[in-house]
């Protein structure tokens, strides 16, 4: 069932298949553990600055005391989960989704942040010093160099002095 759990968590199976699969992911089953561990992996990849926690058991315990919630069944048309994923992909590819930025980047920089880890990407995915030369050769012709001046070369500097 692992294969199906993997596809399910990505929303890449049909709704009725998903329903029957969910019927089988019972408490404490291997399927449940797979769901948990696959999600953990994704979280670590997205957040190498990972803070480990395992709340599920504790929350479950507390929920034992909770009355079962029920909501009136809404008559939404049965969705085809996969179709939604496919059409979303089509529109993204053709037109592009524009999300206006609300992100506020800190207005002043923080020199004291130097030497602290602000991981955004797993180290294993970093460009290796071996590939530095491609980076430098590319940098010559990149508009980013034109805009930032040599500042972009600082990337080169940190690796360039190692292993050369």
């Amino acid at each position, binding site marked *: 069932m692992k294969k199906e759990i993997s596809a399910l968590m990505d929303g890449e199976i049909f709704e009725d298949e998903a329903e029957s699969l969910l019927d089988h992911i019972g408490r404490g089953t291997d399927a449940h553990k797979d769901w948990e561990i696959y999600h953990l992996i994704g979280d670590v990849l997205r957040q*190498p600055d990972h803070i480990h926690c395992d709340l599920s058991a504790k929350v479950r315990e507390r929920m034992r005391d909770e009355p079962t919630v029920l909501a009136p069944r809404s008559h939404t048309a049965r969705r085809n989960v996969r179709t939604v994923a496919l059409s979303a992909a089509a529109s*993204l590819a053709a*037109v*592009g*989704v*524009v*999300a*206006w*930025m*609300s*992100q506020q*980047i800190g*207005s*002043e*920089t*923080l*020199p004291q*942040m*130097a*030497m*602290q*880890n*602000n*991981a*955004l*990407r797993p*180290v294993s*995915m*970093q*460009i*290796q010093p*071996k*590939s530095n*030369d*491609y*980076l*430098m*050769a*590319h940098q*010559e*012709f*990149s*508009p*980013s*160099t*034109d*805009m*930032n*001046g*040599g*500042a972009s*070369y*600082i*990337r*080169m*500097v*940190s690796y*360039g*002095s190692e292993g*050369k």
Partner: protein
Amino acid sequence: MRLLVAPCGKLLGGLLLTVAANAYAGESQACLDWLKTVAFAGHQTDYSGVFVYQYDNRVETSRITHLAEEDGEYEKIESLDGPKREIVRHHGQVWSYNSHKMVQVDSHHGRGGFPSLLPDQLSTLGSNYRPKQEGTERVAGYDTQVIVFQPKDNLRYTHKLWVHTDSGLLLKAAVLSDKNQVVEQYAFTQLQIGGKIDRSWLGNTASSSRGQGSSAEMRGSDRLEHENATNLVSPTNSGWVADAIPAGFKKTMEIQRPMHGKHAPVTQIVYSDGLSAISIFIEPDDGDEDDVAGLSSRGAVNLYHKVSNNHLITVVGEVPPRTVMQVFESVRFNGK
């Protein structure tokens, strides 16, 4: 009476649309003008400052000094934290501090000065990005105009620039993903524009471009390598094509060039959309065990390479991983 109202309504609607379109076009043009100013100012201005560069899990604080001299531009970047690292650029050449001296690491094969934004690259910018002005902010004590280039597709990143309204210098820049995550960011914390700036380091670079004797700092063998390198770079029609280059990217370069550590010249094809570039490197596979195959990244730069049909193909660019991979998959030989 009704006859009068209908065309009026249509006319007003049409007018409003035109006004909106003009306003949009006006804002778009304003942003493009700022971009031109940034490029120009970066080359023409003497400045020295401290900046913080954040990418992946690194935060680097460095000092950058830029001088526009009679014989061209000089630029020095030195790290202010960690081990001593320094880079000097002049006349298409790059030196790096290594083992207590400056060693040449790259050559721009004789192209005078740095590449500048070509007018036609800028013209396509508007078709692939939505430029927008987003008010003013203070950076390093200076007033800046914030401009944002939001891509129309998800094959490229968002670029946000903070431009000093007086000098036109780029004081802060960020590259963002379509999920609004900051992929990399660079910002000045202190900056001196013009005025007295230390020039004593200018003598430390090779003087071959000045036509003077060799500088004590540059080793003889490096000079030779440099001269050979200049001779070996040539524009070419390699016969290689990439079908899946995203819209708006124009081919700006197709050359055959030597590369450090390579036994044979490498083909490099460069495409640019005005804000980002993609390079494709093609070289014969020399059978070296390739333990870096696949996808890797550094800040906004993504790199994908793999052996394909006896050739080692590498795609590098300031574009998302999906784009470098897509381009890679579409590279093929179309020549004789």
